[in-house]
């Protein structure tokens, strides 16, 4: 914690949420967190999925978990003891969820204290929400300044996203203060060819239905599975891949940069053979 920047004037709390499971919340949390941290800013990613944690696996930190969010909330461990520093990027930290405790152990007051504490230490606090609309999901979004809604171009995901948008506008501390929750749509697992054939909702369709601003489009990429196998966010493991580049662009947009909206394509053949496979 020593070299944590003290000039952290503004800290931003993000929630990565979706309603539906399996759309890529955890992958996106890890990828965006790593992409922002690679620019030298301090980032903590928090797993709110009590009982079914997975962010530790995506970050490759599963062997190093000692204490977790619930230990901190219950005062059993101090926050610095529960934070796990990434071995590759020194400004990136993980606060894991508990795998064994009862999820009711998370209280609103406890989460408020932890988030307030993290705001003092980090420039970015990224909360990985569990699927669903239950307590875990509402607690993850509760103290957020902005939300990233992860959706696949597929009917049930878009419908659940709409539901989550409703919750963000009703159940968050920001909404209750009468403020407007900042929302960003991140479309993942986008398959250009299937969309072109009309087999998949287009980006325009999804944007029109949800009417929230687009943060980025992450193309379906085999490199994402590979990164998860290896326990490295795609933006670390393979930043040159299409998905890696799309996440890096999205992270830059989050930070307020103007980045042209493109959907990167994996360069095929030799480039990937040399580059995509090198990290293994």
């Amino acid at each position, binding site marked *: 914690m020593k070299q944590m920047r003290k000039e952290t004037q503004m800290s931003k709390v993000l929630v990565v949420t979706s309603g539906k499971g399996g759309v890529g919340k955890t992958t996106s949390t890890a990828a965006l967190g790593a992409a922002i941290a690679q620019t030298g800013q301090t980032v903590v990613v928090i797993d709110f999925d009590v009982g079914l944690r997975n962010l530790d696996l995506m970050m490759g930190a599963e062997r190093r978990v000692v204490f977790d969010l619930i*230990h901190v909330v219950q005062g059993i461990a101090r926050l610095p003891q529960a934070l796990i520093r990434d071995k590759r990027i020194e400004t990136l930290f993980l606060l894991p969820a508990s795998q064994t405790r009862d999820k009711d152990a998370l209280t609103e007051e406890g989460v408020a204290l932890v988030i307030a504490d993290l705001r003092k230490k980090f420039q970015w606090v990224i909360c990985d929400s569990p699927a669903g609309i239950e307590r875990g999901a509402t607690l993850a979004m509760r103290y957020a300044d902005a939300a990233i809604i992860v959706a696949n171009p597929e009917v049930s995901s878009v419908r659940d996203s709409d539901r989550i948008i409703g919750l963000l506008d009703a159940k968050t501390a920001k909404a209750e203060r009468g403020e407007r929750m900042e929302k960003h749509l991140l479309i993942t697992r986008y398959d250009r060819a299937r969309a072109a054939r009309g087999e998949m909702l287009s980006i325009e369709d999804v944007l029109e239905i949800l009417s929230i601003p687009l943060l980025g489009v992450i193309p379906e990429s085999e490199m994402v599975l590979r990164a998860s196998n290896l326990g490295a966010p795609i933006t670390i493991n393979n930043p040159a891949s299409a998905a890696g580049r799309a996440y890096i662009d999205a992270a830059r947009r989050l930070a307020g940069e103007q980045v042209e909206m493109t959907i990167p394509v994996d360069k095929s053949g030799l480039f990937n053979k040399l580059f995509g496979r090198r990290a293994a």
Partner: protein
Amino acid sequence: MRFFGFGRRRGSAPVARERLQILLEYERSPFSHSDLFTVLQEEILAVINRHVTVDADKVQVKVDRGDTVSRLAVDVEIPNAPSGAMSLRLHEEFFGAVAR
């Protein structure tokens, strides 16, 4: 990364498999459901506190779970040593005997 020498097989799945095996073996063991780390931390701190007062914030408990043994490192920063803070490091190997 470790590979198992199957010719030139270079996929990432073997790594995933190994990571999961280590993780699940731990999660299925009684250790993952015990408060072993909490208890160890409290007891180690209590022993040290008999001699010097340490700030609970200056205690780092680290673990690295391996496939046969896990490594626990408790790093305690102790103030007021002659030349700045002194670091006391306790290593313990555990799990091995019971988990196997």
